[in-house]
């Protein structure tokens, strides 16, 4: 091996990888870039690390960064909108029964804020409900809601 990797080679590689993330938005190359930057830092501190060790460090650091991200940082990312998530937007919403379910017929529940563009929905409930009860959406089945009593 006439060519020896110096710390700035790793640094350059890391930065190139981070730039590449801009063009290939998959959020994976980024970790390798960070791993390369870390290896550059290690080489700066300990210039005698062999190539094998450098590559190993690179692979492990990248994996570690990815894992750390998913373990600690991702839970902090909250959903900013429920747009396009109709099921998640509907679940947990509560409404008022305006027509109690009779034998073989679905009841009707009304929501103050329209749910999926409709403020009155037919519903099915396991427990008997009366007009005026508050119910919570547990599942959507087509155009019928499965609800629970509050």
């Amino acid at each position, binding site marked *: 091996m006439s060519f020896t990797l110096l710390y700035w080679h790793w640094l350059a590689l890391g930065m190139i990888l981070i730039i590449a993330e801009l063009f290939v938005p998959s959020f994976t190359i980024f970790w390798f870039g960070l791993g390369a930057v870390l290896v550059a830092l290690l080489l700066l501190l300990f210039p005698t690390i062999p190539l094998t060790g450098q590559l190993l460090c690179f692979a492990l650091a990248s994996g570690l960064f990815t894992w750390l991200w998913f373990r600690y940082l991702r839970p902090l990312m909250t959903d900013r909108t429920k747009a396009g998530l109709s099921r998640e937007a509907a679940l947990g919403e509560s409404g008022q029964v305006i027509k109690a379910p009779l034998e073989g017929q679905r009841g009707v529940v009304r929501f103050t804020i329209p749910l999926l563009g409709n403020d009155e929905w037919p519903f099915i409930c396991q427990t008997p409900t009366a007009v005026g009860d508050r119910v919570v959406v547990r599942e959507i089945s087509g155009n*019928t809601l499965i609800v629970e009593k509050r």
Partner: protein
Amino acid sequence: MAGIVLVVIFVILVLVTITLGVRLVPQGSKYVIQRLGKFHSTLSPGLNIIIPYIDTVAYKVTTKDIVLDIPSQEVITRDNAVIIANAVAYLNIVSPEKAVYGVTDYIVAIQTLVQTSLRSIVGEMDLDDALSSRDMIKAKLKAAISDDISDWGITLKTVEIQDITPSKTMQTAMEEQAAAERGRRATITRAEGEKSAAILSADGRLEASKRDAQAQVVLAEASQRAIQKVTEAIQANEMPVLYLLGEKYIEAVRQISTANNAKVVLLPADIPAAVRGIIGTLGK
């Protein structure tokens, strides 16, 4: 050397693993994940991690509302008229896993469902009802389809009837009917106008006659009062009357004399007697 090779392969392995394991799902879609061929989970929008090699993204499903155009079709109403109807449906995939595993192609399935339901609903209506009650068709259509598509995890938000157009011959007949109806109304209106005009002019004449009669009565009463006043003034005192009448008599004679035609004016010699002759009994 072996170490280098192994480490390079290891780096590649890590790279591939992370690339396959990290999944970015864009907002507005969900990914259905299969683990070794069986459904495992559904990925929500955002950054997700799956186990590479055993998990695969089997389907990418949009969770935005789908605008589904229902193509035009000929529908026969209960009274055997042919109309051409098309619609547009708005769907939302609530449970992607049900939508992809429950039916081979939910788009085609729902399109045909809406078409057939529309046919059966319009087939139970008369032409006039079908043309005028779109909201009813909408409600029936929604009720008919909702339960069918609930198994596929799809919610039908709304279905709108876009056009309902009768066939060409039907349209011509309907236009003729409408024109005839308008014509009938025009004739009736005209006749009613004439009738009102006749009644009004008769009323006018009646009113005018009443007023004329009243006027004559008033005139007669006025003459009566004038005569009464004159009578009261005279009171068997005939000289002033005689004088006045004599004056008027001479005035009349003078006017006759100034007329420019040939004439013979005979003047009575005894004017008071002549005037007495005119007023008859008064002078006696």
